[in-house]
């Protein structure tokens, strides 16, 4: 490979690495401040905890650094548009979590984010462990636009700990060309008629939920015997299941490639597939659809309480809501936004024109820590038993 004196071939890769280092350093360092247009980099650390009430400080003079632990994608200014417009001189930085368990683990390990974004089924853990603090809803100007049912999602012991933001349905999605009789029950996910073409969401509590709908169990009170039945049921179902999906793009591509024709699904995938011309229908099972809600909570000892409250308040704003609905196909907690949807595909996906759907919908209940541990362990055993 050349003699020891000159190795021209090796300068090439060495040069590459050095260039990469320089480029990366420039790109990383130069753009390390968050994407706020005219904001001077304000000093780290917040305004004093005892801030004068928000109305006393004019909005464009509100400064500070807020850190939000969120799911990737939500850092796009589209999804906090109202806050950005109202307080142009405040900085928002984002940390990312990949799943509810991930976010919970990070907050437990002491993450210093001011605001975080869990979903139903996990919210109460933050309350129980003293990670989330009570929110004074009188400071939220958008609060009365949120329907009562959604407000309750973030309430514990009569106190409001978290504020709802995004929501959606879960139901059975199926390909109408390959499944000729309309599906009307969650039991379709376990039907041998669809062997090899079923796709279930990779989630233990989700599986328990489906089973309790099918058998009529009380989701909040599953006995060990019931759990054992559920476990065996899903072990059997695994033989009919093609693959578990983790994120909606997995699900969408499985439907498009023909690998799946029946699946547990959120309405985002439904809307996407309709838009892509795949003939799918979103079932209205006799046991009722499931609904989930995402909320924003404030960390207990945050020094940026005022800014955090503003952030959450503006999350309920109309511009933010419209962006969420039209880009992610997720519902927004602001009722005005939902009523203002005009797109036909979306109106179908959210069943806006059928108010009875919401009444038949089962919201994901709160779990106890024991249930969370037992149900996720059950699911892992199902997966390990293949």
């Amino acid at each position, binding site marked *: *490979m*050349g003699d020891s004196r000159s190795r*021209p*071939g*090796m300068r*090439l*890769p060495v040069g*590459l690495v050095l260039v990469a280092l320089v480029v990366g350093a420039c790109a990383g360092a130069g753009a390390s401040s968050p994407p706020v247009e005219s904001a001077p980099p304000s000093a780290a650390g917040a305004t004093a905890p005892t801030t004068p009430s928000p109305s006393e400080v004019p909005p464009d003079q509100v400064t500070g650094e807020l850190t939000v632990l969120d799911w990737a994608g939500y850092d796009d200014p589209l999804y906090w548009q109202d806050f950005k417009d109202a307080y142009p001189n405040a900085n928002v930085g984002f940390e990312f979590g*990949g*799943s*509810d*368990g*991930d976010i*919970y*683990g990070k907050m*437990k*390990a*002491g993450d210093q984010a001011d605001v975080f974004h869990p979903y139903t089924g996990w919210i109460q*853990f933050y309350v129980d*462990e003293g990670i989330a603090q009570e929110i004074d809803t009188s400071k939220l100007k958008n609060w009365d636009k949120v329907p009562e049912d959604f407000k309750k999602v973030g309430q514990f012991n009569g106190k409001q700990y978290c504020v709802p933001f995004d929501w959606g349905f879960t139901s059975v999605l199926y390909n109408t060309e390959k499944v000729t009789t309309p599906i009307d029950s969650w039991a379709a996910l376990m039907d041998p008629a669809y062997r*090899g073409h079923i796709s279930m969401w*990779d*989630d*233990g509590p989700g599986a328990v939920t489906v089973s309790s709908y099918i058998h009529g169990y009380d989701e909040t009170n599953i006995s060990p015997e019931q759990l054992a039945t559920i476990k065996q049921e899903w072990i059997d179902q*695994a*033989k009919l*299941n*093609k*693959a*578990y999906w*983790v994120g909606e*793009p997995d699900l969408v*591509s*499985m439907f*498009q*490639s*023909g*690998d799946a024709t029946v699946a547990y699904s959120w309405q985002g995938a439904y809307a996407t597939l309709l838009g892509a011309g795949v003939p799918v229908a979103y079932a209205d099972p006799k046991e009722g659809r499931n609904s989930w809600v995402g909320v924003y909570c404030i960390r207990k000892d945050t020094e940026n309480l005022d800014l955090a409250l503003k952030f959450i308040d503006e999350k309920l704003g109309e511009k933010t809501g419209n962006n969420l609905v039209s880009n992610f196909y997720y519902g927004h907690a602001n009722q005005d936004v939902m009523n203002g949807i005009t797109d036909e595909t979306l109106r179908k996906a959210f069943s806006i024109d059928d108010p009875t759907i919401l009444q038949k919908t089962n919201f994901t209940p709160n779990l106890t*820590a024991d249930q*969370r*541990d037992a149900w*996720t*362990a059950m*699911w*892992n*055993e199902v*997966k*390990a*038993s*293949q």
Partner: protein
Amino acid sequence: MAASEAVARKPPRGRRPSDGVVGARRGTFWALLLPVVAFLAVFLVLPLVMMAALSTRADLRGPLLEPWAPTLKHYVSLAETPSYLRLLLTSAGIAVLVAALTTLLAYPLAYFLALRAGSRAALLLILLLVPFWTSYLLRVMAWKLMLGEEGVINSILMGTGLVDQPLSALLYNRFSVTVTLVYVWIPFAALPIMAALQRVDPAVLDAASDLYASPRQQFRHVTLPLSMPGVIGAFFLVFIPTVGEYVTPLMVGGTSGTMYGNVIQDFFTKAANWPFGSMLSVVMLVATIAVAILALRAVDIRRFVEP
């Protein structure tokens, strides 16, 4: 340093290459050793010890760093759940298969790059690695597009009439996990083999051919033995991480292709049950280390490594 001092400091008996730490090389020794040891101690050993300790925590409730009463309940629970242990065995089996296939398929590549590619070798090697600078997730998504039931390959097979039903066995099973892993590891496995082949001394090969050794004999008696440290290195390079692999099974394994690593990952990120996940990891670690040590003893690694 005067030549006479250097001579005086040489070990008195023979010229064994790594005789002790005395003399001129002591400074270098510590300069090389200390940073590595410090780094490993703080960022590897300490976290691992913490993890092992965490496996004795009953659950994740309460403040994380508060002292807790150790319990072996997770280990007991593992003994009572045969499916996890079975999965570990299966995963290890897949890992052995993948490592063997990869090493076999990577050898010609390494041979080519080290001994035939000449001055272009660096460029060709980098070309091989360039695809890995694209997101693995996206690449696998593209492969799934090819292998799905209505994907490109099945469309071609059905279109030409070679099969009447689409092949559903191309994707979402253990076979696809194995194939994908081999495909991904080949360039990396080639590297230690390549590095070892760079030691091949042309003079020895010339001597061999002067003694009427055919190219095949040259390979078998000179090149192959010299490259063995690289082959062994490649095998373990692939085997060890594959036991705990989780991304590939997640993406192409489907329901039946789950591996042990998926379960660990899920206990950490989905279940937020770090103690149980730590316990599973400790078991896997101990088992893998034990197997590796036994295997290296069997192969008599010292034979290759000691001069």
